[in-house]
């Protein structure tokens, strides 16, 4: 254990010598051309999705309708000033087409092209090497300072270098393999997503591990704030606007991702699509962007045969004791589940002040974080070795190219690839459940919630969450024995290779409970779990307890409560 901890603190040399070699630099250097390619690609896709001009015109009208609604209902600061103007022009052009008996396909194509162009320009990242270096430096420096100031708790601490990010964030798992494979092919990192902090944290992890910068989709709302926007751009982010759910936008986004992957850009998607609202580790993944990895791999094989660059999928689990947004996330989840029809995509990051306080709180107060790097796999979820070769479950080498082959030829089959994406998503979800590290706080939240649940078997979730205070007290001895029992069950599963836990779980159960109580949602105004004066266990906020409990959902541990 000690050795592992040491390893997780080591420094990693960059795997590629200079920025000149970074694919992302190549990409931004030829940005104009790249966007042109994206537009062409997206145009081709959409044309093949819409069989004839009537369908195309319908698609354009739907898009226009949705975009008008977006501008009216959820305007954001980051939206360009000419948004209204642009869509009014689209409206007039469409009107003109509809007035003629014979619809003019050329005109419709032109409208489509102009929309794609607009989207592609918006999505495209703005990577810049010197900005990248600067931003990296500022972030590392800034966080280290903040960390020291907070931990050492005196003003002078601000300038001390005793503590660094490395002390706060543990990276474990298949680190060396990730570094090796990043030299051999294109790595696609797919992390779990529970906090707004994830984007920044994972950026730091990638830098720490010496990997070249990755491109990743970051929510457009993060670009609302100019300072964050600057950092995001510098770190290689491209923009994803989750308000735009029309086909033209989604296809443009996918084209961007697929082409970048084809050019060998290491990429990152949050395949859950959005932060986990209920605290569960993702079980359902969004397939759109994930599918672009499979597509790009097939395209590589088509162009280069057996020498094609391989794409490796690396699941990553980000583990926290404490998710700052937990109260609002679980509220949104419960509202939605409680059949509240319309809930607004609210934006906790609406002002610079909010985000700065968020970051400050997180880096000063948040407790330890661990990042688990999962085992790399090929685009169908097969194991790969250090050489990047794929193996089946019996250890026989296989050629992923063969998945695209029919009658000795690589064939393009969208439906087949959609099915492969579904299969890959299942494999990723399975890896998540294996590498997600159990913390003391997860254990006690799970046990406490399930004890209360068991005592009130007949209640549905909503009634359970509304139980009166006096029904929420659990005698300590009962709590302790149950924690021990569940911990044993977790250890059985670890032996079977189905779960993992943090090092601090190697301790006696009293200490683990203490550690958990100290850390579980530690800076929420209402603590999910506390000790009463009599030394028993109770909660101040059932919703939050439920949120943290969900981290251990899906392992079949409930039946041992």
């Amino acid at each position, binding site marked *: 254990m000690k050795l592992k901890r040491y390893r997780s603190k080591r420094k990693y040399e960059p795997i590629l010598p200079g920025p000149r070699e970074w694919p992302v630099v190549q990409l931004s250097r030829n940005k104009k051309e790249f966007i042109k390619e994206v537009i062409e690609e997206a145009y081709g896709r959409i044309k093949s999705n819409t069989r004839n001009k009537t369908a195309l015109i319908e698609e354009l009208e739907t898009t226009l309708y949705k975009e008008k609604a977006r501008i009216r209902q959820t305007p954001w600061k980051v939206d360009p000033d000419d948004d209204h103007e642009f869509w009014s022009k689209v409206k007039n052009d469409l009107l003109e087409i509809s007035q003629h008996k014979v619809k003019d396909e050329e005109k419709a194509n032109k409208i489509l092209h102009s929309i794609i162009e607009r989207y592609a320009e918006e999505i495209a990242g703005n990577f810049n090497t010197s900005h990248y270096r600067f931003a990296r430096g500022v972030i590392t420096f800034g966080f280290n300072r903040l960390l020291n100031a907070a931990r050492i708790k005196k003003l002078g601490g601000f300038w001390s270098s005793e503590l660094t990010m490395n002390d706060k964030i543990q990276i474990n798992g298949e680190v060396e393999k990730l570094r090796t494979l990043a030299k051999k092919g294109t790595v696609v990192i797919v992390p779990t997503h529970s906090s707004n902090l994830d984007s920044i944290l994972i950026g730091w992890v990638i830098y720490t591990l010496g990997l070249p910068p990755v491109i990743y989709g970051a929510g457009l709302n993060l670009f609302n704030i100019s300072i964050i926007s600057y950092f995001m751009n510098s770190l290689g982010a491209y923009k994803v606007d989750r308000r735009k759910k029309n086909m033209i936008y989604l296809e443009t986004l996918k084209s961007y991702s697929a082409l970048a992957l084809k050019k060998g850009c290491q990429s990152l998607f949050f395949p859950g699509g959005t932060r986990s609202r209920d605290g569960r580790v993702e079980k359902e993944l969004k397939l759109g962007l994930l599918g672009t990895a499979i597509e790009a791999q097939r395209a590589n094989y088509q162009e280069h045969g057996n020498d094609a660059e391989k794409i490796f999928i690396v699941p990553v689990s980000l583990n926290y004791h404490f998710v700052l947004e937990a109260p609002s996330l679980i509220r949104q989840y419960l509202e939605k589940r409680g059949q509240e029809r319309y809930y607004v995509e609210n934006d906790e990051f609406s002002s610079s002040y909010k985000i700065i306080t968020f970051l400050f709180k997180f880096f000063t107060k948040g407790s330890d974080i661990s990042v688990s790097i999962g085992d790399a796999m090929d685009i*169908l979820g*097969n194991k790969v070795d250090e050489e990047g070769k794929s193996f*089946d479950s*019996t250890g*026989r080498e*296989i*050629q*992923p190219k*063969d*998945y695209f*082959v*029919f*009658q*000795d030829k690589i064939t393009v*089959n969208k*439906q*087949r690839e959609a*099915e*492969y994406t579904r*299969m890959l998503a299942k494999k990723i979800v399975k890896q998540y459940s294996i590498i997600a590290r159990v913390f003391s706080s997860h254990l006690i939240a799970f046990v406490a919630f399930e004890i209360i649940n068991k005592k009130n078997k007949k209640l549905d979730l909503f009634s359970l969450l509304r139980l009166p205070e006096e029904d929420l007290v659990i005698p300590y001895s009962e709590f302790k024995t149950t924690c021990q029992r569940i911990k044993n069950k977790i250890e059985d599963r670890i032996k079977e290779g189905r779960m993992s836990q943090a090092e601090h779980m190697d301790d006696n159960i009293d200490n683990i409970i203490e550690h958990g109580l100290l850390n579980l949602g530690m800076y929420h105004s209402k603590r999910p779990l506390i000790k009463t004066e009599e030394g028993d266990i109770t909660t101040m906020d059932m919703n939050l307890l439920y949120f943290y409990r969900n981290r251990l959902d899906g392992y079949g541990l409930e039946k041992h409560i």
Partner: protein
Amino acid sequence: MASKNIFDKPIGVVGAGSFGLSVANLLAENSEVLLYARNPEALESINKKREWNNYPIHQNIKAIDDLEQLASTCDIIFPVVPSANFRDMMKSLSPFLHPYHILIHGTKGLNLNLPAGKTLDNMEVLERHHIKTMSEVIMDESVVVRVGCLAGPNLAKEIAQGLPAATVVASPFNEVIQIGQQLLRSDRFQVYGNPDLIGIELCGVLKNIIAIASGALSGLGLGENARSLLISRGMAEMIYLGKALGGDVRSFIGLAGIGDLMATSHSTLSRNFTVGRRLAEGESLGRILGDMQEVAEGVNTVMIAKKIAESFKVRAPITEILHRVLFEGLTMEEAVQYLMKYPLNVDVDFI
């Protein structure tokens, strides 16, 4: 050879049982077929006499006894072996398979994948991952992912006589369905597609239970009202069980569900039906199974399905009572009485 090959390579079939031969004969109308037969007698008879077990063998079929040769020559393979041997067959075939292979199986049984040392009797509760359909066995044991199955009212003897029939090819992959259609379709054989692979497999598996019960009704001479009652309640029971295992209700009211159920419940040609009839006529299970040439999958299925019903808390009175008749010494008369006294249920509550 008079085949109008659609694909460049011959099509593979594994298994020379009656349904394996039917499939091989159907395929042979459009393609060359390599048939893997384990039994040297069968191999010789197929290649020389062009006949086996009273089934005529199409001239485009060539029998071989080498799985490696089969896998390296054929991209598309139809495994049709009894469920009890299926996993072993896949284990032997797997080393020669690649992700470009396409497998469409025609086996209508379940495989149990229990932890070491456990049997159906000492397992407390079955979980879904303990129960494998044949497509799941294929995916477990090999790298093949483009998998499909054949199911439907396909009584081997009728197909051999050249009577008109139809089947369902099920697969999540459209290309697999299309290939199945291209390969099997003829003037006398129609092919439908369905994306619900698990559901269609379960149709084929679960209908065998009802077929045994239907045979029993015949043996007891209980008439057509009783049979219709059995078929429609049996249908509901198949749907409950099928849903619990992840099948789509709609698949059960199609050709592979109600269609196959009708055929096997009415036909004296069906092996499972025969088991039920002879039981009702007073023979013992051991004796019946002893002198049957081929496996009646339904007997094994009753055993597994009963455990599934208990584990997943599904109401399945026909399966339960059949289990008592088959393995616990209840007589058929008692079984019928029990079912007739079963508390009334809602007619249709599964849609």
